[in-house]
C-alpha cells in the first residue's frame, strides 16, 4: 500500500478516479457510449476528443519543463498555426484539394517549428531565462496571428481539413489517433533512446551535463522545437474542429492549462525527472473537470475558481516545507518540552 502511494501516478490517478466516480454518482449514464452512424458517442469519448489539443501541448511542455525551462508562448503558437493553415486554404482555388490541405498543414507545422527554434535560440543562444524569452513570443505571437488573419475570423468549407479535428477513424475521433501517435513518438524517443536521459540531465544541471559531454544547447533547442511542433499540431486540431481561425481567442490560456497539467502529473517545475504518463493523466483531469462542471450545470466561467484550488492544492502537496509542517503537526506531542526537543533533534 505504501509503495503504491509512493508511485508518481498514485495521486493524479486517484484525483481522476474521484472525478469520474463523482460523475458516475451524479449522472449514472455518464459512462454510456453509444454507437451512432458508425461513430461512438459518449462523455468519455468527448473528454478524449476535446482534451486532445491540451494533451498535445502538455506533452511538449513536459519536455520543456524537464529541461528546467518553461514555454509561455504555446497559446500564441496554437493561434498562429491555426491562422496560417486556414489562411493558406482560404486562398486556394479549391479548398477541398488534398494537395492544398497538405501544403497548408505542412506550412503551419514549419511555422510552429520556427517559433520553437526562435524560443530555443533565445534560451540557449542568448542565455535568457526561459520564462522571459518565451514571454516575448507570448505577447507578440497573438499579434502575429491576428496579422495573418487580418483581424478577421477566417472560416473554411473544406471537408478534408475538417477531418483532422472533427473526422473519425474506426469509430473514434481522428484527433485521438493524432494524440496517440505524438504521445507514442515522444515516449519512444525519450524512454527507448538516450534522449530522455539527456533531457533529465540538462534539467538537473546544465553545466555538469555539458562537462559530461552532453550537448546541452542542442538538447534544449530540440526540446523547444518539439514543444512548438506540438502546439502547432494542437492549433491545427482546434482550428479544423471548428473550421475557422480566430487569431485573438484560439488557444487562449493554453499555456497555463498545459503547465497545470504537467505539474499535476508530477513533473517538478525545477526540472529533471519528467513523467509523460503523468502529464497525460493531468491533462485528462483538467478536461474531465471542465466536462463535470458543464454537466453539473455550473456556469463554465466558474471552472476558474475550482482550477485555482486544484493548482494550489497540487503545489502545496508537492512543496517540501508544507508536507513537513503538516507532518510536524501530526506528530506533535502534548508537552511543549517534548516538542522543543523533537524540533532540535530533527
Amino acid at each position, binding site marked *: 500500500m505504501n509503495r503504491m502511494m509512493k508511485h508518481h501516478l498514485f495521486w493524479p490517478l486517484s484525483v481522476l478516479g474521484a472525478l469520474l466516480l463523482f460523475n458516475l454518482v451524479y449522472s449514472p449514464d455518464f459512462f454510456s457510449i453509444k454507437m451512432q452512424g458508425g461513430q461512438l458517442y459518449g462523455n468519455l469519448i468527448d473528454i478524449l476528443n476535446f482534451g486532445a489539443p491540451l494533451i498535445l501541448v502538455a506533452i511538449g511542455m513536459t519536455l520543456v519543463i524537464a529541461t528546467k525551462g518553461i514555454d509561455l508562448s504555446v497559446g500564441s503558437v496554437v493561434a498562429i498555426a491555426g491562422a496560417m493553415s486556414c489562411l493558406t486554404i482560404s486562398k486556394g482555388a479549391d479548398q477541398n484539394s488534398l494537395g492544398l490541405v497538405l501544403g497548408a498543414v505542412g506550412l503551419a507545422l514549419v511555422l510552429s517549428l520556427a517559433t520553437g527554434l526562435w524560443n530555443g535560440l533565445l534560451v540557449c543562444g542568448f542565455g535568457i531565462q526561459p520564462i522571459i524569452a518565451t514571454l516575448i513570443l507570448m505577447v507578440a*505571437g497573438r499579434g502575429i496571428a491576428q496579422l495573418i488573419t487580418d483581424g478577421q475570423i477566417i472560416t473554411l468549407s473544406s471537408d478534408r481539413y475538417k477531418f483532422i479535428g472533427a473526422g473519425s477513424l474506426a469509430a473514434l475521433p481522428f484527433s485521438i489517433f493524432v494524440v496517440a501517435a505524438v504521445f507514442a513518438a515522444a515516449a519512444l524517443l525519450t524512454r527507448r533512446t538516450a534522449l530522455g536521459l539527456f533531457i533529465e540531465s540538462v534539467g538537473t544541471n546544465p553545466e555538469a551535463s555539458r562537462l559530461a559531454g552532453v550537448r546541452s544547447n542542442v538538447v534544449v533547442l530540440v526540446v523547444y522545437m518539439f514543444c512548438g511542433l506540438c502546439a502547432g499540431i494542437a492549433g491545427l486540431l482546434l482550428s479544423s474542429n471548428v473550421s475557422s481561425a480566430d487569431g485573438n481567442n484560439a488557444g487562449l490560456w493554453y499555456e497555463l492549462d498545459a503547465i497545470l497539467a504537467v505539474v499535476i502529473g508530477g513533473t517538478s*517545475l525545477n526540472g529533471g525527472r519528467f513523467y509523460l504518463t503523468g502529464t497525460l493523466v493531468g491533462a485528462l483531469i483538467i478536461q474531465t473537470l471542465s466536462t463535470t462542471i458543464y454537466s453539473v450545470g455550473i456556469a463554465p466561467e466558474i471552472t476558474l475558481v475550482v482550477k485555482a484550488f486544484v493548482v*494550489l492544492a497540487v503545489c502545496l502537496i508537492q512543496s517540501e516545507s508544507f508536507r513537513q509542517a503538516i507532518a510536524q503537526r501530526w506528530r506533535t506531542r502534548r508537552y511543549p518540552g517534548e516538542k522543543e526537543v523533537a524540533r532540535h533533534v530533527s
Partner: protein
Amino acid sequence: MFLNRKYFPILVTMALFALMMAMGAFRYTGFFSLQVLFNLLIDNAFLLVVAVGMTFVIVSGGIDLSVGSMIALTTMMSASLVQQHGVPPLVVIPLVLLFGCAFGWAMGAIIHYFKVQPFIVTLAGMFLARGLCYVISLGTITIDHPAYTSIAMAKISLPGGSFLSVNVVIALVVVLAGIFVAHYTRFGRNVYALGGSEQSTLLMGLPVGRTKIGVYVVSGFCSSLAGVIYTFYMLSGYGLHAIGTELDAIAAVVIGGTLLTGGVGYITGTFFGVLIYGVIQTLISFEGTLSSWWTRIAIGVLLFVFIVLQRALSARRSTVKL
C-alpha cells in the same frame, strides 16, 4: 555619475520615448500638444499603478500574474456592493483596497512559507480572482452612483486648455510614493537586497520573509487601487475587464529597464515604460491604417530589444558564462 552604467537602460528608455514623441510630432499634425501627452496618462493611469506594484515584485525577484484579474475583481466587487447592496462608496473603496492587500498577503505567505514558485501561486491567484468575478455576476454591472460618475467626469483644467482626470492624479501620487518607498525607506532597500541575492539577504539578517510577503501586499494594493481607477474609467464591473493587463504591466516594467531576474530597476523607468506603451497605441491610432494588433507586435519587438540589451549589459558585468 549620470553616465553610470546602471542608469544606461533607463536612459535608453527615456531617449526612446523622446524619439517616439518627436517622430509623432513630425509625422502627424496635432500630435505635439500637451493634451495628447495627458491623454496618454488618462488612458493608462490604471496600467501605471499596476506597473508600479509590479516593479516592486520583479525587483524582489518574483512575478505577479494575478494583477489583471485583481483589477477585474475589484471593479466587480465595487459595482456589486455599490449598485446591488447600496453600500456607500466611502466604505466600498477602502474595503476593496483592504481586500487587495489581503489577497496579496495570502499569495506572498504561500510563496514564502511553503516555498512554492511565485509564478504558480500567482497563477492560481489569477484563476481565483477571475473566477470570483463570475461568482459575483456573469454579466456587466453598470455603475450610476453619483459619487462614481462625478469623479469619472471630473476634469482638472490646466492652463493652456488642457485637462487631466482624477485618475491621473492618483496614478502620479502612486508613482511618487513608489519612488519614495523604493529609494528612501528600509523596506525599499530590503526589496533590492532580496532581488540581488536571497541567501545574502538572509545572512545579513534582513527580514526576508517580511519583505517577500510585503512585496506581494504592495502589488495586491496597487492592483486593487488600479481596479478602483478602472472602475472610474469604465463605470462598470465586468469579469472580462483588463484581460492581459499582467502581460502589459510586465512588458512596461521590462521596457523600463528593470531586470526580470531581480535586484535592478527603477520606478521612474517603469513610468516611461508605461508611457512608451501608450505612445505606441497613440501612434497607431494616429496612423489610422495600422490595426490594433500592431501594438502587440511592437511591444514584443521592444521587449526583445530590451531583454537582449540587458543581457548584454549584465553579461559584461559578470564574465561567468553558462
